[in-house]
Structures are given as C-alpha cells and as structure tokens.
C-alpha cells in the first residue's frame, strides 16, 4: 500500500502532462479479467475487479471510465445521472472537453465520446449526439476498415510477456475496436434517421456496408469468423436501409428491401411494422391494418419502446387516411393514454430509486408525447375542431419548429377558428346579423342594419403570444414560408443558360418536416401553394391588402396550382384590388366564366387515382381531406358573380350590380349567404327603393318590423312626412 501511495503522489505530479505510470503485469491481468467478466455480463464481479484496479491506478482515466461503465451496467442502466457525472470526471482526468466535439484529437478518447453520444441519443438530444459522432467517425473510420493485421502488430510489440494472455487481449481487442467502429456507425445512421436526414443515413449505410462490415474479408486468417459477424449484421443493415428508403419514399427500392426482409425474418416486430408502414404509404390501408394486427403487442420492446402507443398511433394514421377522422382521433387519444400510463409506471418505479432519473437509460426518451400531440392536432383539425387542434399543435411546434407544414397547420387552425367553413355565411345566425334589431316605436321606429360579417376586432396583446387569431396565423405563415427553400420561380431568373441543372437541384433537396418524413420537391411545391393561398386570405382578413395582393399574385404564378387554388387566387386578388381601387382589374378577374375548375388536387394526381381505381384497395386512398365548399362549379361561379356584383356596387354601377346579384342568387344554392341580403338591401336603399327593401325585410327578417308593405300602396298620400308634419 505504501508503494501505492508513493505512486499516487508521483501520479498527481505527473497528471498535468506526464504520462501515466507503467502498467504492471498484475494490473494488466486484473484489467483483462474485468473485461472478460464484462463480456460475460458478470457485472458484479466486474465491478469488484474494477474497484481493485482503480485503487492501484487512481489517475488512469480509462480505468475510471470502465469502472463507471461497469457500475452503470450493474445498476441496470438506472443511474444515468451518476454515470454522466462519472463520465465528466473521466473527461477531466483525460483533459477532454466533452461539450466541444472539435476538441476530439485523440482516438484514445473515442470511447468517451461515443458513450457521451449514446447518452445524448437516449436523452433525445440528437443534434448534439450527431455533432460528436460526425467528428468521431473521422477518427474511427480508419480503425474500422483495415485495422486487422496492422493494429495487431503494435500489441505484439508491446505485450511482451505472457504469450497466452497477449493472444487473448490481442485478438479480442481488434474485435472490440472494430465493434466500437460498428457501434458508432450504427448509432450514426440511427441519428441521421432521428434527425430526418435519410440521404445521409443511406450514404452511411452504403459506406458502412462496403468498409466497416466487410472488414474481415481482407484478413486472411480470420475470414471465417469475420464473415459470420458480417452475416449477423446483415439484417440490421437491411432494416436501416428500409427505414431510409421509407423516409425518402422511394417505394420501388423499398419494396425490394422489404421483400428480402420478410423472407428472412417475417416474425420480427420491427420488420412487420416497417412492412405495414410501407403498405400504408402505398395506400393499401387495409393491408397495413392487417399487418399491425398480426403482431402480438407485448407492452415494451427491448429498446424500451411502448408497443401499445405505436400500435394505436399507427392505427390512427391509417384511419386518418381512410377519412375516418373521429375513429382516428379515438386511436390517437388511446395512444396518448397509453403513453401517459407508460410514463407513470416508469415514474412510479423511479420513486424507489433515490435518483432523479431512476428510469432505465432506454426509457428516458421513451415518451412520444410531442409526436402524439402533432398527430392528434392534425387529426382534430380534420375533425373540424379548430381550437383543440390549435392547443395540440401549438405545443408540438415548440419541439418541431423546423416543420413548415406544421406552421401552416397552425395557421389553418386559426383560420378555421375564425371561420368554421365557407358555408358558415349561410347559417341562420349569420343571416340574422343582417338586421340587428329595431329601436323606438311609432314614428321613431328605426331598423338597425348589421354592419356586415367582417369582424375587425384586432386581437388583444401581441400576435407573438399564440392565440387562434389571424395575427398569429400571419406569423405562422411567415415562418412556414421562410422554412421552405427559396421559390424556384424567383431563384431561377439568374442563371438562364443552365436551367437544366437548376431544375434538377431542387429535386434533390428534401425539406425536413419533423416528426413526419421529409418533404419531396413536389410536396414542397404544393405546400408552397397552400401557404401562399392561406397567406393571401389571412392578409385580407387583417386588411393588409398590399400583402394580400402580393401573395395572391405569387400564388397565381406558381407552376402547379389546383383548380381551387387558382379560383381562390383570383378571388383574393380581386378583393385586394378593389380595396386598392383597381376595380376595373378586379371586375375582369371576377368574370364567372373564368371559373372552370375547382378541384382540390392536381390533375396529375387525378389520373393516377383513376389508374389505380381498378385496384379495389386504392380507392380508399382518396378523399381523406376535409370537405370544402363550394363543392360544385355552379356555386363557385355564383360566388365569383356575387363578388362581381359587389365590385360593381362599390364602383356605383348599381344596375350591373343588381343584375349580377340576381343571377348569382339563383345559382348559389339555398340558404343564401348573409352577404347577399346585405347587398340586396344595400342596393335597394342606396337607390331609394325603400319599399322594395321593406318587402325583403318583411319576408326574410319579419321579426324586426311589424310594417307590411303592399306594393301598390304608396305611403305618401296617407302619412305626412314627419318634418312637414311638424313645421
């Protein structure tokens, strides 16, 4: 012991830059024993060995590190906090700044960094973990690929005594070093997937396939063993590939990959879920549902995931696409409950432990709370429940703020909260707003006409505080637009010669949309159209006509517009133009004959659907959207014509206004929207057809006036005018 103490002192002295004391034979022996115990999963004995070793080598960071690892394993991964503390102590000993992956200079420290990345992965700090692993990979890569046969030399050179022992350490070590490279590669792929970068993940898988996992083939003497290892990794690689392909939505290659997976491990839950996901993406929802049902749902997977949550969530997704929104919401709610229960169970377990994070490492990041909120919010929006949807999504967006589509959905919630749907104008309560009531009686009786349906109540407080207002919607839409790559329309102007390359590049870019799969170019284009349409609408609601005009113009410039979007673009543009006193332009835009198509999907999609219509299952895929009115072309035309009448009325062309109003009212369908009564009364009153107005009022709003008009009767002879009566 005295010896030890002396060594300690000298160690402390040397700690600054001097190397550690030489490893003695007995220490070496201890270390290899500890490792073999660890490999045998005898963590208890491993721990005690490590205690002995650390007493002898208290300043050796590697010993301290492995002691921490052994204890962490021994605790059943419950002591995450302690392990992190130990890890940071190890970092201090090794003079490593773990928070700065740039500081990684020495491949000797790679295990520390790897373990840090593992912890970060389980804490779901994917970006931080990725930073570390990206850097680590540069160092590990040469080790993994051709280490066999070279690294061995150094050991042969160094370990001079105990031939038997050396051999064990030697071969095992190579294997282990390589195992670390493999583990790191796997984790790297996983992290790329977690951060929705399927291309990078795929690149890494391909790379790993070529190098890390075929390493053994170069090494002659070990060929057999290495090939086996390779074989063992194959299904995992295949799983990764499938996940990448699903995320990239390249269905053809995915089909191949899944086929091979199914042929080898058809009973694997992960495989079945992937296959179900695949069928779901292809639109075979029934098949997907069947696949999901075929798995026996044990509560937790080995990786600590809660199967009932996933099962219900995925069922919800399927029902969403089947347009069974309420059933979908039911399943999401159930998934939500399961998730809450699972967390509660873990927390209850955690109370027995003194530790804050007394959950196992795997279950720390288990909760799918925010993903479920996201799904639930979108589902509720499609159920027409704008406010609950808003509450869900506003929470989800705090986690998934890089998702442009999510911002659009939030804006849609705000829009829907203020206008449930376009048939709202026809509702009785809206029509009752046309005449607010009456005041006085006798000669003094007055009718109070409603000011209109437009509500200009600016939201209290700042729009930055989330509330289902148009102001907040405008912010959301701004975010959404900013998150999209630059509009190719505006970007393309500069290079004219190589327009081919310009066209190709945006195809390659995937826009992240966490927690969903990244967006492909076509999806981005259609998303942009939807965002622009919503932006124009919201700007109109906020009386920002300049901006509305800008958005509408931009929308109409987009190359692929649905019929409905073009129609809306014209309507919005016209309204903004009228407000900006360009009525002549607006009147041209509002020509009802221009309305030829109000379909909600692109024509290409339609033909695809028609094609797949022969497939009995494919018919499920269409129409999972929320119903939108006007439903038919006649009504859409009538609405455009009504707006045309309004534009004429504003310009003072009352005859034309009246004529268009009459025509459109006969086609717009009953009950008439409230605005039509307004305009009718407006036109009658402004031109002094007081009796005509009275007829309309008595017919449609009889409760506000007792005065019936007989058209032939002229009121003038009977009743003296009040002013003449008095004077």
């Amino acid at each position, binding site marked *: 012991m005295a010896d030890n103490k002396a060594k300690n002192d000298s160690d402390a002295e040397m700690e600054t830059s001097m*190397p550690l004391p*030489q490893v003695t034979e007995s220490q070496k022996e201890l*270390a*290899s024993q500890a*490792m073999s115990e*660890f490999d045998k999963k005898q963590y208890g004995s491993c721990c005690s060995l490590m205690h002995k070793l650390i007493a002898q080598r208290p300043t*050796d960071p*590697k*010993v301290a590190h*492995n002691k921490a*690892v052994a204890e962490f394993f021994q605790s059943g991964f419950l002591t995450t906090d302690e392990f992190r503390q130990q890890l940071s102590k190890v970092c201090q000993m090794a003079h490593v700044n773990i928070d700065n992956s740039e500081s990684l200079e020495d*491949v000797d420290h790679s*295990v520390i960094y790897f*373990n840090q990345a593992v912890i970060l992965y389980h804490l779901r700090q994917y970006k931080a973990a990725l930073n570390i692993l990206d850097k680590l990979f540069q160092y590990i890569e*040469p080790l993994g690929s051709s280490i066999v046969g070279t690294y061995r030399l*150094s050991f042969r050179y*160094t370990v001079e005594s105990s031939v038997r022992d050396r051999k064990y*350490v030697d071969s095992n070590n190579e294997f282990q070093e390589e*195992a*670390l490279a493999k583990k790191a590669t796997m984790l790297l792929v*996983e992290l790329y997937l977690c951060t929705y970068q399927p291309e990078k993940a795929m690149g890494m898988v391909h790379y790993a396939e070529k190098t890390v996992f075929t390493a053994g083939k170069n090494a002659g003497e070990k060929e057999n063993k290495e090939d086996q290892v390779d074989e063992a990794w194959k299904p*995992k690689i295949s799983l990764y590939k499938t996940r990448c392909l699903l995320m990239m939505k390249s269905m053809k290659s995915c089909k191949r990959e899944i086929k091979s997976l199914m042929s080898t491990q058809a009973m*694997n839950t992960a495989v079945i*879920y992937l296959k179900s996901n695949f069928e*779901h993406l292809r639109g075979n929802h029934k098949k997907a549902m069947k696949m999901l049902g075929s798995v026996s749902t044990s509560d937790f*997977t080995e*990786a600590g995931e809660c199967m009932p949550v996933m099962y219900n*969530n995925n069922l919800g997704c399927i029902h969403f696409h089947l347009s069974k929104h309420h059933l979908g919401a039911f399943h999401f709610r159930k998934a939500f409950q399961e998730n809450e229960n699972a967390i509660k169970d873990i927390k209850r377990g955690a109370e027995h432990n003194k530790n804050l994070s007394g959950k196992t490492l795997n279950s720390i990041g288990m909760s799918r709370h925010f993903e479920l909120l996201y799904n639930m919010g979108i589902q509720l929006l499609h159920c027409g429940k704008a406010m609950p949807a808003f509450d869900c999504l506003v929470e989800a967006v705090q986690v998934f703020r890089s998702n442009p*589509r999510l911002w659009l959905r939030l804006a849609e919630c705000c829009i829907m909260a203020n206008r449930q749907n*376009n048939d709202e*104008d026809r509702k009785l309560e809206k029509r009752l707003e046309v005449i607010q009531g009456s005041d006085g009686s*006798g*000669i*003094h*009786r*007055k009718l109070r*006409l*409603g000011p209109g349906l437009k509500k200009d109540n600016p939201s209290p407080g700042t729009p930055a505080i989330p509330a289902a207002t148009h102001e907040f919607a405008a912010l959301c839409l701004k975010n959404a637009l900013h998150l999209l790559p630059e509009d190719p329309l505006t970007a393309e102007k500069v290079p004219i010669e190589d327009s081919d390359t310009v066209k190709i590049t945006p195809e390659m870019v995937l826009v992240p949309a966490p927690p969903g*799969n990244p967006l492909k170019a076509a*999806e981005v284009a259609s*998303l942009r159209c939807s965002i622009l*349409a919503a932006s124009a609408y919201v700007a109109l609601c906020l009386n920002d006509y300049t901006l509305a005009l800008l958005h509408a113009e931009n929308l109409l410039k987009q190359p692929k517009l649905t019929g409905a979007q073009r129609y809306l673009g014209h309507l919005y543009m*016209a309204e903004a133009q009228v407000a900006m006193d360009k009525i002549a332009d607006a009147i041209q835009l509002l020509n009802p004959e221009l309305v030829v198509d109000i379909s909600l999907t692109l024509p290409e999609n339609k033909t695809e659907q028609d094609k797949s219509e022969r497939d009995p299952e494919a018919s499920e895929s269409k129409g999972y959207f*929320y119903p*939108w009115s006007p439903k038919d072309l006649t009504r859409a035309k009538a609405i455009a014509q009504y*707006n045309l*009448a309004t534009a004429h009325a504003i310009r003072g062309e009352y005859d034309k206004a009246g004529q268009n109003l009459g025509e459109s009212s006969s086609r717009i369908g009953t009950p008439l*929207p409230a605005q039509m009564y307004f305009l009718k009364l*407006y036109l009658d*009153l402004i031109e*002094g*057809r007081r009796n005509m107005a009275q007829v309309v*009022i008595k017919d449609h709003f009889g409760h506000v006036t*007792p005065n*019936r008009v007989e058209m032939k009767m002229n*009121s*003038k002879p009977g*009743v003296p*005018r*009040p002013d003449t009566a008095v004077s």
Partner: protein
Amino acid sequence: MALSVKELASLLSVLSEDTTQTQSFESLATSFHHYFTKQDHFKVGSSIVLLLQNRDLLPHPTQKLAAIFLLYEMYRTDPIAANPFATVFVHILNPPTENQEAGQFDLHWAIPAISPAERYFLSQLISSPTKEMFKKTPTQIIQLDVSSMQNFDVSGLQLALAERQSEMPAQSKSAMPCVVPDRDTKPSSFDHFGKPGVINPDVQRQTIESLLTGNKAPVENCMMPEFIRLAPPLHIAEDELCWMNPVDMDYSVAWDTTMCVSSSAGVEIRRLMSKAFKGALTLQQQQQLLDELEKDNKLVYHIGLTPAKLPDLVENNPLVAIEVLLRLMQSNQITEYFSVLVNMEMSLHSMEVVNRLTTAVELPSEFIHLYISNCISTCETIRDRYLQNRLVRLVCVFLQSLIRNKIIDVKDIFIEVQAFCIEFSRIREAAGLFRLLKSLDSADPQNTPTAATR
C-alpha cells in the same frame, strides 16, 4: 366613438327646441364649447349627422339649422375644405334629386332638404361669414326673406372636396348609414291611437339614446358591400402524420477495451510528439519516433496530431512532419492537413516538407499551384531586403527542383513564374530559373508567342 349619456344630454340641451328658437348662434356656440372640447368634436359631429338624416329626431327647423351651424362651428378655425363635415354642407346645398313619388324613392341616407333662407345662411357661412350673422337666432334666419338676395358661390369648396374625394378609393366612399327609419304604419300602443305621425318626446329621447350611446352604438357602424371571402381548403398532404416504428437496436454504452493495454510505445510516442510540437527532437528521439511509426501504420492516428498542430511540427521537426504526412495520406483528413500546410507561413522548413512530399507521392496539382503562388506573393510582399533575397533564392531552387523532377508542368505556371524571375532578376538564382524556363520554352514549340518574343 359613441357619446356618453351625459354628453348626449348636453348636446340635446344645446339643440333643444327652446334654445334654438331663442338664442343667437353666438350663444349656442358658447354653450356648445362649454360642454365639448376639440377631441369630442368628431364624434359629436357624427352624431349630429345621424340626427340630421332622421327627420323625426330633429323635427324643428331651428334645431336642424342649429345642428348644421354646429358642424360648421366645431371646425371654424380650420379652412372650410378641411372640415371633415364639409361634404355634408355640399350635400345639403345640392340635395339628390328626389323623385316625386316618395314611396318609391326614399333615400334614408339623405339629409332632408332645407329652405331657401337656410340655404342662403349656409352658403354665406361657408364662403364669407360676417359677425352680424352670429348675432342672429336660427328663428330669425328661417324667417328671412331671401328671394331677392343673391346666393353665395360655393363652387370653390365643391371643387376642393371633389378633388380630395377622387383620391380616396371607391370602397371607402361606398358606405351607407345603417340606421333605417321604419315608421310604424299602425299604432303600436294605445297612446298612439289617433295620433299618427305625432312626435312622442319620450320615445324620441329613447330612440336617440339607443342610436347614439352605448357599446357598439349604431352611429359607429355603417354598411357597405362586402365580398364573400372563401377560406382556403385544408392543405392536402400525402404523408404527413408521424408513423411509429419500433427501433430494433440497443444502443448502449461501450467498454473501453484499451484500458491498461495501451502500449508503452504508444505512451512514449505521444510524449515525444508533444515534445516535437514544441521544439526540435534529438536525432535519437526522431529515430525512435520514426521507428515506432514504421512498425504500426495505424499508430499515426493515435499520436495526437491534428491539422491545427501541423505547422508547429513542420517548423520544429520537418522530417517527422514529412513521415507523418506520408502515413496520413490514406486518411480522409489529409486535405485538411494540406490546406493547413499551404496556408501556413512560408519558411525553409515548410518548403522542405512540400518538396519532399512532392517527390514521395503524387500531390494534387491544385495544391502545388496554390503553394507556389503563396510563395511568390510572400516574396513580393516581404519588406526585409535580406530576408527577401534569401526567400527568393529558396523559392527559385524549389521551383527548379520541381521543374527538373517534372513534378509540375511549366505551362501551367509559366507566366506567373516568368514575372517572378523578371522582378527578381538581380538575384542569381532567379536568373538561373529564368534560363531554365527559356530552355524549356524553346524546346517546346507550342509556347505562347508573347513569351517567345521576350
């Protein structure tokens, strides 16, 4: 915008039948200003306009005239065209041509016509008011006989207003008051029997109150044509929801297998390397280091070298740097090392390293070109004459070696190097290099004519 009940009472007291009949305009104005300040004027004015539009609410002509006067009085200090209610005056002076049959044609938004005397008064008021006018009472004005008197010209005001209005969008001019008179044609209570069209002061007061006071009073509102604004349909996405797949992987922490097995050589090498960054190693140490590296190809990744540390190594131990770089050639970091090397300060050692590298392996040609231009520009910019001469010699020898060994193609750098030689022609080595270039040039017929003429 609406009046408070108290304000309304004050306004009605100023506009009461008695007051307007007996008091002069001057005293009417005084009592009005007693009750209202400038800030109130617009909302009071709006209320007055609403009262004027309804015949039954200001039934007596003196009231009407007083009301019109107040609209003027409120903004008397401003030019008349700036009065927000100037349009009302124009409207009153040019009433919309009413159809004979009032039943068919009844403009609820129009202000009822006024008598010629009132017209006379109003037009004088807005064109050339005199002090005597304000001394009169509304009754006196109404009783005035104006048939012989000449009307005042208000066309200037009309023109100014028309101009101002033309600047406003049509939409802002399209509104209409939302209060519509709807006289009961039948008696609504027993009190009213036999008294059609008779003013009931209580009801009148009540009506005025409900029109002008309270939250969202009708006086605040107007009615204008409104578009049907369709909300856009919900965005349609093929694949939006988050599908969950179980992850069939167990990512757990790893055991450090290098514990206690790291070689003594490894430790020693590392120690040597950290020395090598700081100062020159002894020949023996250097040899030891190189031997160890020779033995283990992968050791080079474990010695703690990073691109940032390379310049130190090059300056202190160029031989080691060369050896290490040669071993790092396969690494994916080698380009980083190269870029550090190119951009580090030019020196004998860095040049030596590059020179040795060029002979040992095939370097990317961009790298060599970059290095050469870096050298040349360093020579050109250096101030110290002695040092400059030294560096130029070095560069010349370096270039000659590169050219002789056919590591670079002269054509690629011909012009740059030629200019360099001419600039430093005073130095013997530069002249030598120039001659070398010339000889190559003449040997190669394909050279540029400009170079040949020199």
